[in-house]
């Protein structure tokens, strides 16, 4: 009886994971196409990074707090961020939670505990440390996650954050998404050491997973979460996968990247996890077809709807610099509008 329930749960968990992966991939594809058509200004695709992100998400609780980076679409979707929230951000329309102020890919979804993405890479990490401090200070059970690319491990903020989190023994996971490239710089030229091994320099736990496998990422993320939640201090967890798209829609990877992983490739996490889930009997061809078709329908529908939403009103540009608008901004607003 218990076994059956567990089997059932396992199955559902995997279908949900797969669904999030497909929805994320479908959204990615849609936005990239829309960008080429001039309907979207810019985008940093997530494709190739879905499995690792979803594995992490599966190990987290609803209350956990995330300081994500610009490529975490699958993570956000799996945690329940409505795709309208993502599309409205990309559009920068008036329904965007941040009133269209940020470039596409700089998501915010504080209802699902996703904080706001900035551009200077890894500068979310010290913030996550502070947030984790507050969690510990109030003796809450939540943990904090900060994600970033492997290139971002070279930054000042990475070092500051890991050392402080270690010294303060905070409930935080530093989740490094190693896609092999920082724009045109391959990881071998970024640093001479595996990212997860840098944990040793801070006296914290380092873990790594196959980011192309939902199961492996989940397994390792669960280990990380247990470690952190039990008060044993921070974890640096690295997942490795491929950046299947360009760095961004402004980037031309053929200038520097020789081995590009295309959709359908043996190294595409959709191919890998789909095959595995079928083998394990979680999925059938029929279900797969249905999920894919449904994802396309949903994405197209929502995209079209969101695209129709108008731009934020011009006066919104002057709001929220401060709680109360100071005289200089009021005057500038009058002058400009």
């Amino acid at each position: 009886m218990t076994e059956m329930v567990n089997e059932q749960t396992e199955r559902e968990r995997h279908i949900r994971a797969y669904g999030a992966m497909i929805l994320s991939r479908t959204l990615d594809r849609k936005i990239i196409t829309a960008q080429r058509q001039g309907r979207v200004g810019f985008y940093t695709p997530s494709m190739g990074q879905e499995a690792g992100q979803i594995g992490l998400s599966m190990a987290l609780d609803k209350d956990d707090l995330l300081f994500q980076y610009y490529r975490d679409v699958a993570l956000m979707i799996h945690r329940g961020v409505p795709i309208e929230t993502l599309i409205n951000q990309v559009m920068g329309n008036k329904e965007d939670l941040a009133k269209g102020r940020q470039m596409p890919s700089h998501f915010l979804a504080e209802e699902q505990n996703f904080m706001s993405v900035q551009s200077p890479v890894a500068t979310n990490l010290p913030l996550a440390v502070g947030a984790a401090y507050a969690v510990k200070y109030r003796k809450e059970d939540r943990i904090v996650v900060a994600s970033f690319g492997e290139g971002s491990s070279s930054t000042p903020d990475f070092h500051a954050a890991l050392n402080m989190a270690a010294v303060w023994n905070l409930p935080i996971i530093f989740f490094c998404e190693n896609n092999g490239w920082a724009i045109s710089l391959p990881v071998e030229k970024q640093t001479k050491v595996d990212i997860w091994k840098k944990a040793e320099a801070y006296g914290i736990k380092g873990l790594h997973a196959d980011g192309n496998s939902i199961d492996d990422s989940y397994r390792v993320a669960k280990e990380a979460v247990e470690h952190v939640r039990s008060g044993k201090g921070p974890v640096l967890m690295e997942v490795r996968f491929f950046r299947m798209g360009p760095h961004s829609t402004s980037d031309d990877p053929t200038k520097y990247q020789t081995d590009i992983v295309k959709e359908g490739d043996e190294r595409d996490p959709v191919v890998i996890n789909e095959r595995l889930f079928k083998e394990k009997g979680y999925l059938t061809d029929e279900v797969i077809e249905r999920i894919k078709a449904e994802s396309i329908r949903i994405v197209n529908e929502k995209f079209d709807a969101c695209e129709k939403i108008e731009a934020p009103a011009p006066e919104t540009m002057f709001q929220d610099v401060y709680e109360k608008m100071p005289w200089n901004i009021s005057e500038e607003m009058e002058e400009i509008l």
Partner: protein
Amino acid sequence: MTTMNMVQAINHTLDMKMSADDSVVLLGEDIGVDGGVFRVTEGLQKKYGQERVMDTPLVELGIVGAAIGMAINGLRPVPEIQFQDFIYTAFDQIINQMAKMRYRTAGRLPLPLVLRTPYGGGVRGGIYHSQSGESYFVHTAGLTVVTPSNPYDAKGLLSSSMDMNDPVIFMEPKRLYRAAKAEVPEEDYREEIGKAKLVHEGDKMTIITYGSMVPTVLSTVQKNNLDADVLDLRTLLPIDVDSIEASVKKTGRVMIVHEAPRTLGMGAEISALISERMIEYLYAPIIRVTGPDTPIPYRLEEYYLPNEKRIAEAAEKILNFR
């Protein structure tokens, strides 16, 4: 009422605020056991514990970044940067995270955070322990910049800053830390952010200044019997343009005094505001008496800092201008 110097007034204010509100926490280098290199946080770690008064590792960007994260997650942190000269290692966190968080989240993630830091010369600190970097912050939309010139204002302004739901850069003129004593009420009071104070009244000219230069300006005015309004700005961003306007329209002659280097110092903005809005009231050029456009030297510091002589000469020049 108790007589306090500025160090004591700030310490007392932090103490009051911490005892009233558990979410107030302090963090910085040497602020705990040691009580801060200027003794501003003396005794607070003993009283409130290591969890509320944290001695951090040596990393300003970590201090500032962590404070931002604390503020996002429900605390009201008061980070300290030991010398303002070292704040630049945290500059990106200030410019790109702190100043822009409310804006980029459309008000969803406000930051109640007061970053305290001693600044300015007059203590023989040389190039790296004397800087007055207020311009870097005043140019940055999203920040509020405050600097007191006396113990009474220090308490009132710090209290108001800590009430805010926006990040404040609270700059403490270190040469005045122990220089001036004043009566400071034990009870709670506020001085309004964004309001200058007329600290001397006169009809012939307006001297606009703030922070460490206020006592020097006042003593010059007294010794030379200058018939001058003296405005202590107290808040550098937003600038209290109404008080400036009222005084300048009355006097028609303006001097601005600050320690920071002249080019794009506060004097530039104040001067520009005046000639934008009330140029027809002016009888004389707007004169800036400031630190020169050089780093602050160690041995020759007294030539760097504006002094009574330079202020008096400038006053004469303005008054005699036709």
